[in-house]
């Protein structure tokens, strides 16, 4: 359980996290979604007591992180795959972490096995690929068998097999009743991994709730239809309450109506259909419309200013 209350972090005059409140419940995987620079990592560092909030509070399992008697057993975090001294071997790194909590060496070897690092455990971390670094980060997060896991961009740099592994891992951890909070800037990744979504943009929460609900709230499902008598059909559908747009002659995009109703109406009036396809809103579309104006670094060839002026999306 992670609870943030009016959490704010400012660096000088730049507000990284702007008065956000949320609760992350145990037993499910919560995705923290937002464009780069939206405040995801800052929020996670504040949860871990690494960055001090400018104002507001955040607790994990009922207490600020630093007040826990055995912090590694409460929260395991992958904040940064690079939070490891490059001159040390993976196993040495894990053993130094384990020593602080008197965690037995057997557990160190267990997490090494679990993350598939056995063959490189004695190699220096400096030579690790991004994916191996991520695995080591996840291994150290799992070290204390924590009730809450915080993973910042865990699949970043992993190969498809590694991505699958992370998905299965977080699923099984959540099914055990643990709290799993992971961030990503990829909507498609979140849709496949998370149950719940917390969408952040420019330091503010834009949307929150079950994944499908967040997507649906942004764009309703659409139906595409093609017919030689499109104009006639459009009038019928509009009379039935559908929103009709046309992108090409003979083709209609419909909203506010489902495919079954379209088929029945067409049949009743003897109108032939050449295509009738329900189309659920694309995840990326949903994401783009969610975070529109909340993107910190955008590429815009027409604008002279590289970023959108502050306040435009407030």
């Amino acid at each position, binding site marked *: 359980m992670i609870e943030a209350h009016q959490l704010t972090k400012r660096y000088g005059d730049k507000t990284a996290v702007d008065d956000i*409140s*949320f*609760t*992350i*419940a*145990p*037993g*499910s995987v*919560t995705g923290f979604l937002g464009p780069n620079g939206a405040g995801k990592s800052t929020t996670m*560092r504040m949860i*871990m*007591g*690494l*960055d001090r909030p400018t104002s507001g509070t955040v607790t994990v399992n009922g207490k600020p*992180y*630093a007040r*826990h008697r*055995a*912090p*590694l*057993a409460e*929260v395991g*975090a992958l*904040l*940064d795959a*690079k*939070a*490891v*001294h*490059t*001159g*040390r*071997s993976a196993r*040495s*790194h894990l053993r*130094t*972490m384990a*020593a*602080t*909590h*008197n*965690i*037995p060496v057997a*557990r160190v070897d267990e997490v090494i096995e679990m993350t598939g690092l056995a063959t490189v455990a004695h190699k220096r971390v400096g030579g690790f690929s991004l994916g191996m670094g991520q695995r080591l980060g996840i291994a*150290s997060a799992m*070290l*204390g*068998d*924590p*009730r809450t896991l915080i993973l910042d961009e865990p699949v970043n740099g992993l190969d498809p097999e590694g991505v699958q592994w992370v998905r299965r891992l977080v699923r099984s951890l*959540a*099914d*055990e*009743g*643990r709290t799993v909070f992971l961030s990503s800037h990829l909507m498609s990744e979140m849709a496949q991994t998370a*149950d*719940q979504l*917390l969408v952040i943009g420019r330091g503010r929460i834009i949307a*929150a*709730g079950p994944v499908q609900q967040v997507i649906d709230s942004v764009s309703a499902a659409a139906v595409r239809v093609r017919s030689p008598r499109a104009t006639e059909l459009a009038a019928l559908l509009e009379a039935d309450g559908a929103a009709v747009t046309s992108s090409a002659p003979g083709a209609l995009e419909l909203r506010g109506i489902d495919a079954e109703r379209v088929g029945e109406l067409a049949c009743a009036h003897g109108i032939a259909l050449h295509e009738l396809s329900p189309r659920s809103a694309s995840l990326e579309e949903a994401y783009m419309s969610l975070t529109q104006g909340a993107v910190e670094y955008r590429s815009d060839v027409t604008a002279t200013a590289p970023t959108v002026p502050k306040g435009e999306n407030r």
Partner: protein
Amino acid sequence: MSTITATADAVLPTAARPTVHARPSFLGILRGEWRKLLSLRSTWWVLGATVVLITGISLAVAASVDAMAADPVTAPTLATTNGAELVSGGFQIGMLTIAVLGALLITGEYSTGMIRSTFAAVPTRVPVVIAKAIALSVLTGVVAAVSIALSYLVTMPQLAAHQLVPALDDARTWQVFGGTVYFLVAAALFSLGVGTLLRSSAGAITVSLTVLLLLPGVLAFVSLNWVETIARYLPLPASGAFLGGSEDSLSSGGDQLTAATGLLVIAAYALVPLFAGAVVLRRRDA
């Protein structure tokens, strides 16, 4: 307030109780820091270099004793010199490598990002600095003692010819040897403190070596009274108060501090930056 609650069909929290035995203790933190120190190759390089440099310089000093005795200018100085000072004559170069080790112990964690893992494991932070200081002191103390013991052995043949082998039953010998170890440990802690304050390897090493090595030499050319007073309280000149301070030492020129004051000044160099570092560490973002 955006509240996210588990969906109805989600598995109810079963209050997953960790099966891994995790019980933090200061001893554990200390073991972790000790392991950190010894599991880096750079530590062994620096320590090896320290032993070789201290012993090598002592050997060179001993080798020049013949020439000094033959030269009518230096012969009287040599006659009043304590053999122990010749044996530990290489400590200034050891101070350099040990200062680098002390600074890197913490700045290396900042430059690699390791500090975030460290503070995630020990969010109260200050025990980490205390554990680092203890581990560093023990390791530096051992290396300094080994270096002096080796220096004693390798210089013995040369010094014996001039009856300069320090007597092991002489309190003065142990004051010099003990004082050298004390000073090297303090130099390590000083750079650890500076490193904790500055967080950057380059900055910490520059500041440490400037204060330890450069300033005494530079200020020696300034003959203003107040500058001379300041210079007396710099680490290396202050160490002369209990290490002997022969003619050629950098502490010559002004009146010496007493041995007790010298020890206190050196203790202040070791502890003040460390204490200040620990205070700011508590409040700073990692």
